[in-house]
């Protein structure tokens, strides 16, 4: 396992007590639901329609309804460890990356495996284009694999210069894929040709979280330099940056309306410390909400279609889901 590989679906989170400059934005998180799991939940993923998937220590993935905590499904993977999980198609499908290099798409309702790909290397991050046609996966090597989901064929192997991928993001129209690397560059590819359109080389440290704005023009990068950078995806130039905090951004998600960005922070040297969460306005660059309790150790988060920003914590017995309004 990489010692600092993170995404919202792969968080092993922690942190330090941070002092943020926008104290007025402090808000009390609301406990939405408690789900009894009776074992550790390593990381989670949320679907916009209100489901949570949690990767359990016993190599199972549980899927629950956020409305009532009802267990929808429990998927077992035997000896294979799920390294990545996320929902697709508004929660009707689940994509799972396994340590043996396999990537599986599951139908949430029936449990049927819809597609299985052999990615070769364990995929630490997997993303699927909004139209469901393309899947991008990357592990610790210096390649991003781009798959055609209709044919289950590998269509492009996209190279990174020196290090493994940290995060990937498709533009909303699927025509562009962005990938951040441990070599600190962010690569922007044309998904049809596999050609690099531009490379962001200005950043000194790794960008651990990537998200496209709904217009596809702006790419948000949560960086190891403690800041969020807003990048013109067309030119690869950094247009502006939100103020640096006191720890690296380890994961990032953008709201469906593009008006806010959720960022999770964690001290790079405290992999089991706390994880302050800030909600930023994309328009003003101001903090709208924050949750920064010293005890906070989020293991996943995202946005629901009703606009709620949610995140989860786990204590070995219960999975708890919180919202910040």
């Amino acid at each position, binding site marked *: 396992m990489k*010692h*600092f*590989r993170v995404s919202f679906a792969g968080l092993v989170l922690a942190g330090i007590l941070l002092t943020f400059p926008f104290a007025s934005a402090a808000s009390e998180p609301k406990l939405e639901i408690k789900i009894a799991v009776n074992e550790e939940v390593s990381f989670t993923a949320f679907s916009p329609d209100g489901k949570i998937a949690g990767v359990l220590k016993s190599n199972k993935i549980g899927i629950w309804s956020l409305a009532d905590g009802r267990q929808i499904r429990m998927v077992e993977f035997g000896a294979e460890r799920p390294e990545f999980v996320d929902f697709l198609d508004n929660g009707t499908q689940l994509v799972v990356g396994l340590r043996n290099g396999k990537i599986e798409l599951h139908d949430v309702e029936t449990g049927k495996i819809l597609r299985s790909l052999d990615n070769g290397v364990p995929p630490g991050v997997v993303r699927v284009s909004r139209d469901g046609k393309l899947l991008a996966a990357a592990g610790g090597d210096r390649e991003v694999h781009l798959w055609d989901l209709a044919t289950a064929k590998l269509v492009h192997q996209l190279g990174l210069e020196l290090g*493994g991928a940290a995060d990937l993001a498709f533009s909303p129209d699927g025509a562009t894929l962005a990938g951040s690397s441990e070599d600190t560059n962010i690569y922007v590819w044309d998904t049809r040709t596999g050609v690099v359109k531009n490379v962001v080389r200005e950043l000194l440290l*790794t960008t651990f979280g990537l998200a496209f704005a709904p217009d596809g023009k702006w790419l948000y990068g949560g960086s190891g330099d403690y800041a969020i950078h807003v990048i013109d995806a067309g030119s690869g130039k950094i247009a502006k940056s939100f103020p640096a905090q006191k720890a690296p951004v380890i994961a990032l998600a953008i709201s469906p309306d593009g008006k806010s960005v959720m960022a999770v922070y964690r001290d790079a040297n405290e992999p089991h410390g706390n994880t302050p969460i800030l909600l930023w306005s994309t328009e003003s660059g101001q903090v709208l909400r924050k949750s920064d309790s010293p005890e906070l150790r989020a293991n996943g988060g995202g946005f629901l279609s009703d606009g709620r920003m949610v995140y989860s914590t786990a204590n070995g017995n219960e999975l708890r889901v919180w919202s910040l309004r």
Partner: protein
Amino acid sequence: MLKYHLSRRELIEKCAALGVVVTATSLPISAIARIWDESELRRPTPPNDLGPFYKKRSPQARELRAAGDAGLPLTVKGRVLDTRGEGLEDAKVEVWHADHFGKYDIEGYRFRAQIPLEGKGAYSFDSVMPGHYPARVCQHVHFLVSAPGHKTLVTQLYFATDPVFEGDPDKNFTRDPLLTSRELVRPVVLTGDPKTMRAAVNFELCLERL
């Protein structure tokens, strides 16, 4: 200094073409060239992960250790070579590692440097023995080495004295899942009395031609 522009394989093929070498075997000249070439090759240094703590634009320095730094003083030296054993004078060597307490400097450039070469591909730097980063098993130093005409090498140096190996790195090097080659675990020479003890490690860096 005399520099060789042809690989040994290219050299023998050229000699055969010009008639200044003849062979008495039934093998084609390309096969002879390959055998001769491979018999002279050093193995490239095994690669290892870049990791998430690489930071661009580190300063040039040979002295990474400052007065008062905690930890066992450490000197690392070696040469940057090609697979024929020739020193690569125009190579660039960049290193970074955690401090004695296992913490990386994210905001600045402590224990991060580009090491100026000393001639014939030789390099050396003084630092401290890195501590154990909480999410990694072994103590390690990251290297990024490049030279014109050669594949860039990303690798890590490990220490045979690391307590994780319990004195037997041959048997125990796999305890760190990221440590994929025993070759990267180097012997440590300890000198001095208990109050002035320091460690020294030789780490040869062999780059593959493009």
